[in-house]
């Protein structure tokens, strides 16, 4: 037991490296927030565009969504970080992480919002169009609010899954939580900094998980 505590909960190591891990939390939070905003905005935009059912844009949207949902983000991260400098594009680790995770989230968000649009009854569109709103205003005022509401629970789950992947930044030197902890682990020779990372991740993501559960429980839509 003593050995377990010594390995994972060494108070001296904790005190020494806590500031590094807390700084890593800041980095994780900023990148995660940026990814959430950009990913959801892009995904929603693409889903709206797809609602117009134009063949050529939809072909590209579907290709994009399928490719980015299929590829492991780490592969793209390594290509952008290690491959792109050879063609003259040099991006910082944080930027690479932001771009890849945003594009991945957007691909999933597009599909989730699209599923939301698809479940809006045809009669809702007809009611909007028959009252002279036209397609775009029916989309914005009638279909979108209903689609977003339907999309919320799966979206929050997907946001969780993708923002956790900020840990992949440790592979390209972004000093987020995991990176700060593994560095501290090498210097101290103790596993305690990894415990710190667990605490840090729980502090950020547990509220989100609880929020997701709450959302799932309250989305029972009041139907007529």
């Amino acid at each position: 037991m003593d050995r377990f505590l010594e390995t994972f909960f060494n108070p001296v190591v904790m005190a020494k490296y806590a500031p590094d891990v807390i700084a890593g939390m800041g980095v994780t939070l900023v990148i995660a927030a940026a990814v959430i905003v950009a990913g959801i905005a892009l995904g929603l935009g693409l889903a709206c565009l797809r609602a117009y059912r134009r063949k050529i844009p939809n072909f590209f949207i579907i290709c994009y969504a399928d490719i980015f949902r299929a590829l492991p983000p780490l592969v793209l991260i390594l290509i952008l970080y290690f491959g792109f400098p050879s063609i003259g594009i040099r991006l910082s680790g944080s930027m690479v992480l932001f771009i890849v995770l945003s594009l991945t989230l957007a691909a999933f968000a597009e599909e989730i919002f699209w599923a939301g649009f698809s479940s809006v009854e045809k009669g809702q569109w007809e009611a909007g169009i028959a009252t002279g709103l036209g397609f775009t205003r029916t989309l914005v005022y009638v279909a979108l609010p209903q689609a977003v509401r339907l999309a919320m629970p799966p979206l929050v789950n997907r946001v969780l899954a993708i923002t956790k992947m900020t840990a992949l930044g440790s592979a390209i030197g972004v000093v987020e939580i995991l990176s700060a902890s593994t560095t501290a682990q090498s210097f101290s020779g103790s596993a305690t900094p990894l415990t710190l990372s667990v605490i840090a991740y729980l502090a950020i993501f547990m509220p989100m998980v609880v929020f997701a559960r709450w959302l799932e429980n309250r989305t029972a839509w009041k139907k007529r």
Partner: protein
Amino acid sequence: MANRPMLEIAALEKRFGANTILKQIDLKVAEGELVFVIGPSGSGKSTMLRCCNRLEEPTSGDIILDGRNIMGGTSSDLARMRLQVGMVFQGFHLYPHMSVLKNVTLAQRKALKRSKVEADARAMDMLERVGLAHKADAYPAELSGGQQQRVAIARALALDPKVMLFDEPTSALDPELVGSVLKVMKDLKAKGMTMLVVSHEMAFARETADRVVFMDGGVIVEEGTPDEIFGSPKADRTRAFLSRVSG
């Protein structure tokens, strides 16, 4: 009915692939007239109604609203035309995420560009007319089917349409709720609204309609006053249909 035609359907055809749904439909609805369309399911009567505001795109033919042909024209012409044609659906289709008042003001604000004050006032007038002013802040899910349908009528009326189209407005309602909707329609007729109604409410047709049109197999088989159609139908198909529905 010497009045000028408010809505005119001329040589209307609708085909889905090889299927012809409507064949050479000609129908005039005069200003202030209530024309009632009956017929077996699959006769094309709902499709004809939905062609009148181009929710269903006619394959050929003309739809003339108050002297203006609504075929052709830009998409904004079409949206403007649709403002003048109120439509009431079998399934109500109220917006579930908006209050009753918002349901009635949305198109007034966003399509007619009325101010909030003006739209709210107009909406309350119309809700008053259908007897639901006290439900303005309720959500559709909190209303009965009959109440939802009356809100849907108010939503259409608030745009000051020239014609109202009713697509089986009472078919989805429990029998005890049908009367409240028919009463609103009767009141509309009394106030001079031009109406084209697809419905199975024969008693209502007999009492309120100026003219009854019987459709079968995508054509108008027969039309006349309620007394003519219900009292002494000429075509065999009409007789057969009426004996089935009066069972």
